[in-house]
């Protein structure tokens, strides 16, 4: 232990610490099954867009395993730190692992360096994690295209970042979505943004929540494996926002209210 004391570098690099402790994310990912149809649960859709106070992040909690619907309470929107959320539509196991590593990383950095990591640093860390660990695998199942929504206290600005399969980061200025129903959602969001009463970034919280809820319904209908589109598919929405006060999740009661409001409007 005395030897390690000398070797410790005060760089705040949690990846380095994990490596030295023998943790190997790549090995874990390589063990995942490489196949088309499998019974590993897959996620559906998540979306994020800017609104008046910050960012709305929404997802459908349904988890598909093959063509079976599993009603697990599976969180696809995961807090990373007090002002950041990660939304993933990929394999939950990977999403949870990534979120754990990242949240420990940001806290570790803040505590060792006695200052929080800058926004750019956080984005790059996320990108580094993806690039180093997720591109080598050829399995379609390990593909994760996460959305990172954060409020930077230093600049007072909310930002959404989208990461593609190779880990490249893209700043999203208005809206984005990933997952099975993402294409349809993006079309609707584009229409709302361009030709709606107001651009999305100016909508108030209630309107933004209602739109998000409607979009989840759209995605659920289009995404279903059933050839007949069911008019009223039960979705299990999860809704969250990131503002200057940090992140917050809508409670079940609030979600029910938003759900009924979204059905009233036509």
């Amino acid at each position, binding site marked *: 232990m*005395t030897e390690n*004391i000398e070797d*410790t570098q005060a760089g705040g690099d949690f990846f380095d*610490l994990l490596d030295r402790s023998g943790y190997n994310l790549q090995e874990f990912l390589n063990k995942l099954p490489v196949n088309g149809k499998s019974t590993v649960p897959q996620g559906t859709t998540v979306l994020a867009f800017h609104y008046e106070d910050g960012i709305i992040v929404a997802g459908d909690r349904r988890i598909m395993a093959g063509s079976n619907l599993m009603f697990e309470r599976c969180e696809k929107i995961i807090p990373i730190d007090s002002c950041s959320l990660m939304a993933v539509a990929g394999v939950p196991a990977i999403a949870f692992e990534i979120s*754990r*590593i990242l949240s*420990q990383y940001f806290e570790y950095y803040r505590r*060792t360096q006695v200052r929080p990591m800058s926004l750019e640093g956080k984005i790059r860390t996320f990108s580094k994690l993806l690039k180093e660990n997720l591109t080598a695998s050829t399995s379609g199942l390990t593909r994760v295209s996460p959305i990172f929504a954060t409020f930077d206290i230093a600049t007072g600005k909310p930002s959404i970042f989208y990461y593609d399969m190779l880990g490249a980061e893209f700043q999203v200025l208005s809206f984005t979505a990933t997952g099975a129903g993402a294409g349809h959602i993006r079309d609707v969001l584009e229409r709302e943004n361009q030709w709606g009463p107001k651009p999305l970034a100016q909508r108030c919280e209630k309107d933004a929540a209602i739109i998000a809820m409607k979009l989840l319904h759209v995605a659920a209908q289009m995404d279903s494996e059933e050839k007949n589109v069911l008019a009223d598919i039960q979705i299990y929405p999860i809704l969250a926002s990131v503002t200057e006060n940090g992140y917050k999740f809508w409670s079940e009661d609030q979600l029910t209210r938003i759900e009924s409001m979204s059905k009233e409007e036509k």
Partner: protein
Amino acid sequence: MFEEPYRWMEAVSTRHNYVQEKLKMGQPVLAVPYNEGLLIFGFAPQPGKIYEIYDRIALGGVGHPADVERLRMNLLDMAHLEGFNRSAQDVTSARLLQFGIAPALKQNFEEIQRAPYIIRLLLVELNEQGKPNFFRMNYDGHWETF
């Protein structure tokens, strides 16, 4: 190395004296419990005094800033690896001290040829029930709660 046991005891006694002399010059750190938790504070804007270690664990140090820094880094590494591999609840100051820092400090202190750590630590935590725990760690690896 030492022809008589007396020489070894003399060396250890000198070592103690040396470190204690150095520690006398340090600014103290105080920790006090109160109804909402606990308060830890130091005097004047000195570097290397109060640090956050984990969610509910804080560190106060007296002594050589570089030594405090080394031990702080080790505590942080241990705490975060444990928190990552298991959970945040599994990170307790007793474990960090008893299994992590104490053996290393004792070993360092016993190696007469090497420079000693000039350090005295105060480790405080709020346990799951919200009650504060206080631990004091001495430069020779002796630790106690109070």
